[in-house]
């Protein structure tokens, strides 16, 4: 990539992360995950996509489209929500957390 991209790549690589959500005590229920941006490191603050929290909303996804709702406090999700954030250098999938919905990826030869 051209020199113009040096700073953007450094920032991108150092702020990029993955956020995964799972249910406490129900590893078989699998997990939901997405990408995110590390906004601050102390304390660690991450902005990520909200779609992975839909299954944990106490009031269901309808809460997201309630008129005039621009934000929902963290306790809008049930207590069984378990969150993890990982960033580079890379990290293996944590012990005991099975991956539900593993995409059936393969690398067919062209």
């Amino acid at each position, binding site marked *: *990539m051209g020199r*113009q*991209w040096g*700073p*953007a*790549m*450094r*920032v*991108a*690589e*150092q702020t*990029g*992360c*993955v*956020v*995964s959500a799972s249910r406490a005590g129900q590893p078989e229920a699998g*997990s*939901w*995950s*997405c*990408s995110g*941006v*590390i*906004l*601050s*490191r102390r*304390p*660690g*603050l*991450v*902005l*990520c*996509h*909200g*779609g*992975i*929290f*839909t299954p944990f909303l106490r009031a269901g*996804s309808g809460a*997201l489209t309630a008129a005039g709702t*621009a*934000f*929902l*406090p*963290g306790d*809008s*999700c049930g207590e069984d*929500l378990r*969150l*993890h*954030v*990982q960033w*580079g250098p890379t990290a*293996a*999938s*944590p012990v005991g957390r099975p*991956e539900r919905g*593993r*995409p059936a*990826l393969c690398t067919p030869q062209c």
Partner: protein
Amino acid sequence: AGLESGPLAGHREPPLQLPHPAELLLLLSCPAFRAHFAHLFGSETAEQWRFASTAPDAEVSEDEEEDQLRALGWFALVRVRPIPEEEADERGPRVAVAPLGAVPKGAPLLACGSPFGAFCPDIFLNTLSRGVLSNATGPLLLTDARCLPGTEGGGVFAARPPGVLVALVAAPLCWKSREWVGLTLLCAAAPLLRAARTALGRLRPCAASLAALLPPEVGAPWGLPLRDPGPPWAAAAVLVECGTVWGSGVVVAPRLVVTCRHVAPREASRVVVRPTTSKSAKIWGHVVFATRETSPYDIAVVSLEEDLEGVPIPVPTEHFHKGEAVSVVGFGIFGQACGPSVTSGILSAVVQVDDTPVMLQTTCAVHGGSSGGPLFSTHSGDLLGIVASNTRDNNTGATYPHLNFSIPVTVLQPALQQYSQTGDLGSLRELDHVAEPVRVVWRLQQPLAEAPRSKL
């Protein structure tokens, strides 16, 4: 645009670390993003658009799809349980945020996300993809940087100002009428972070102090977004409406617009041309020339009743360089709703007959509605051609937006020049009498090396 592994990919340091436990502070959305989304994708066209992370024919329950659509404009602020000191320090510079409107259409962008999320971070963590800002309406942005499921929430950064956060990925895959669009939906970061500051202020008092940790907006005075005009050549693209049909066109002289015949098919028919330089302006004109159906060059020429003010007339190129960076500007996808989109790629092929370029192919994302629009050299801004079509596989019904065909401007320029100077249509009429090998090329057949010999 394409997925590329980041610069440190080959230098991943051992040992691997486990993920850090974290807690959800709040879920937040940008009301303006949702309003623009409803305006662009809602109502009558809703059934045409799909933002599922899976292909349109993949099995996704209606509820799941409903959930995905509802969550599309929602993001989350998460607090990571204390990071070991040494890690917190090593994490380098803080993020800065681009004010809304500071990054112009056509500006290069870098997306960083992890395809398939936490599925296999060793392989997919922080993968990069590059493209341009294709379109923007309020905080709803589109880029042609190709992203995959799992990159939702990933950061999108500008090259200028260097490394500034512009947006987050809202929907990596867009399907319209079951066709992959090849564009990624983004939510601008600045309004999202303002919404986060507001929300933190209303949460538990202790959360308010976190608002100070959110990254600042660079450069612009608060609330006065910089509207950068973007690449000057993009303004030469115009919307062309002929009856109920609309498409794109390009200004080639103050009172002359070139478009496609299938946009403005009949000579003497009246046409409305809408320049992008002013939202409200519309100028009447009429078709002075359109090639016949039998001509492979799908071209029409519109003469305007008044000059187009303030529209830069593009310089027609004389040479083509296969592999060069190119941009298409067209009204595909959204038409009149939010101005032309810019998509980027390379000149993937220059097809010649008797050493004369007769067809250009690019890797830009081209959609219905972009026909008649201009193809530019990204670096010089020279006009290379007129976009005529993209590709559909009649066997599978699949459309390939990233394989498209343009008419080289060198085919048109001499005739346009003669008409501009003398009003004589003679040279333009020559476009109806094109040699057979050129017809064969535009029928997407192999030009015969030489005429088949009779056996007699």
